[in-house]
């Protein structure tokens, strides 16, 4: 009896710790405290669980601890920050797989004793768990370039996917009403695994922030469903927190790309909308590093607009050098971060923080947009569609309505770009043809390097 009280106590303490942990995460100054208290809660819950009366042997638990740490620790310690989205996708797969397996084990242990409600929760746990497992693995493959990151689409895809899902749900409902028909259980598992693959295949690389958030939510919900199956309120709390977090992030990502939530849920998203018609050849103004450096030097304020292209070119450390040089000259340098910059929510902030750029210089879209008209130079590095003014006024444009950074309102616009090729959405960016825009052609890392050299040289000469 005393043991039950002890377990209950650790679980309640852990639930409180988890809520506090997320609360403290809200600001960088308290965030690390949030991690500490989260760890404490987790440790308490694990210790509490280990005294559970049903446990008769610790051998396999120990094996699991050792193997799990051997997998998790290197992934966390050595993963480069550009690869955090991949790691996150993998961890969604792990979490969901664990939930699905526990659900499977519970089903076969208690086949005869399952109530209708428990069976319903168990079906939800297993369906969400298995589909998130394969879905996250597909997302991982796309992010890691093991699979083509372009969307793989075929005719009738939505019909096939939805009917497959409907069959899985139908079988699950039948099983809920007749839990003893255990031959149907593997059918649900296989259909869910398959559905996870099919769901993610048609989604392109640029939509990964939404997909990862959505999978995060599913993984959380499967953990919560597991809480209902096991009668464990701590699991319900933690799963609900994770589920709502993933849900909020996917809503934010949807808004940032001007997609409806229904659009995401039904999987009809991420298909590249090719702008019809040939792109007309218009003159652009290009400039050399010397010219660009002179203008930057004379500026009072500069806003850097980084996109995923910057991270691909590994230019963030050069950008930091540029930031240092300009700041030392008294130039006010800020960074404008679009919500979908990077491959997962907030990814760009992590990449810039890793390059030692102070976080109070990283500014969100709504906050920085009013500053552009007062800014001398907007320097776009590896971002494209999120700076296209067509999103504001051209109703015919595929990206019309998407919130953008008002880069075109700055006094001078500089765009570092390899070539004039269109961005992910396959549309031309009218920003490049404006009179005040200077195109700086070249690789982001080497061009910023040139700029740094020019500025440092001028400093020595002065």
């Amino acid at each position, binding site marked *: 009896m005393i043991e039950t009280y002890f377990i209950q106590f650790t679980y309640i303490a852990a639930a409180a710790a988890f809520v506090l942990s997320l609360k403290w995460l809200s600001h960088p100054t308290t965030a690390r405290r949030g991690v500490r208290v989260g760890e404490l809660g987790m440790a308490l819950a694990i210790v509490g669980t280990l005294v559970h009366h*049903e446990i008769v042997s610790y051998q396999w638990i120990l094996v699991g601890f050792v193997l799990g740490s051997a997998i998790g620790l290197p992934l966390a310690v050595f993963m480069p920050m550009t690869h955090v989205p991949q790691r996150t996708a993998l961890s969604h797969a792990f979490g969901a797989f664990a939930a699905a397996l526990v659900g499977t084990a519970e089903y076969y242990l208690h086949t005869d004793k399952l109530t209708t409600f428990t069976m319903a929760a168990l079906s939800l746990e297993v369906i969400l768990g298995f589909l998130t497992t394969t879905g996250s693995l597909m997302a991982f493959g796309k992010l890691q370039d093991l699979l083509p990151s372009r969307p793989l689409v075929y005719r009738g895809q939505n019909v096939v996917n939805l009917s497959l899902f409907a069959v899985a749900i139908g079988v699950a409902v039948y099983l809920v009403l007749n839990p003893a028909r255990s031959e149907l259980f593997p059918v649900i598992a296989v259909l869910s695994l398959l559905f996870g693959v099919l769901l993610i295949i048609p989604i392109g690389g640029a939509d990964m922030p939404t997909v990862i958030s959505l999978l995060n939510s599913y993984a959380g919900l499967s953990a919560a469903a597991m809480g209902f199956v096991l009668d464990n309120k701590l699991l319900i709390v933690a799963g609900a927190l994770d589920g709502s977090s993933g849900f909020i992030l996917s809503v934010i990502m949807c808004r940032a790309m001007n997609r409806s939530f229904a659009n995401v849920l039904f999987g009809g998203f991420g298909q590249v909308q090719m702008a019809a018609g040939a792109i007309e050849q218009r003159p652009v103004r290009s400039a050399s590093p010397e010219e660009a450096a002179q203008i930057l030097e004379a500026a009072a304020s500069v806003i850097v607009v980084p996109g995923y292209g910057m991270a691909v070119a590994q230019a963030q450390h050069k950008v930091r050098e540029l930031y240092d040089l300009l700041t030392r000259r008294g130039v006010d340098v800020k960074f404008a971060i679009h919500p979908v910059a990077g491959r997962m929510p907030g990814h760009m902030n992590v990449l810039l923080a890793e390059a030692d750029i102070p976080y109070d210089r990283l500014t969100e879209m709504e906050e920085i947009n009013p500053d552009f008209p007062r800014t001398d130079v907007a320097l776009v590095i590896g971002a494209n569609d999120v700076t296209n003014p067509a999103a504001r006024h051209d109703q015919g444009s595929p990206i019309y309505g998407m919130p953008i950074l008002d880069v075109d309102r700055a006094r001078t616009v500089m765009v570092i770009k390899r070539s004039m090729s269109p961005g992910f959405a396959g549309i031309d960016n009218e920003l490049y043809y404006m009179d005040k825009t200077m195109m700086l052609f070249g690789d982001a890392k080497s061009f910023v390097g040139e700029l740094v050299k020019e500025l440092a040289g001028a400093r020595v000469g002065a």
Partner: protein
Amino acid sequence: MTSNLESELFVFLLATFVGFEVIRRVSPLLHTPLMSLTNAISAISLVGSIVIAGAAKSELSTILGTIAVVCSTANVVGGFVITDRMLKMFKKREPGK
């Protein structure tokens, strides 16, 4: 409807609301660490896996439970470590720079 089920639905509902309120306040600056932290937290499913792996009720359940312990432990350990690794990098401007 059992009282157990009723209180569980209550807990789920309230935790979801708390989650919405708390997470809405997290600065977009920290959305990546947020995701890795919630991931580590939801790996609390480890406690369910532990009981199944240790209860030795059937061969199948021990195997499935052990694999589940491996997966959840990887998330617990990895999730907290990488969140802290990321948060360590967020620094304010050094004075005098």
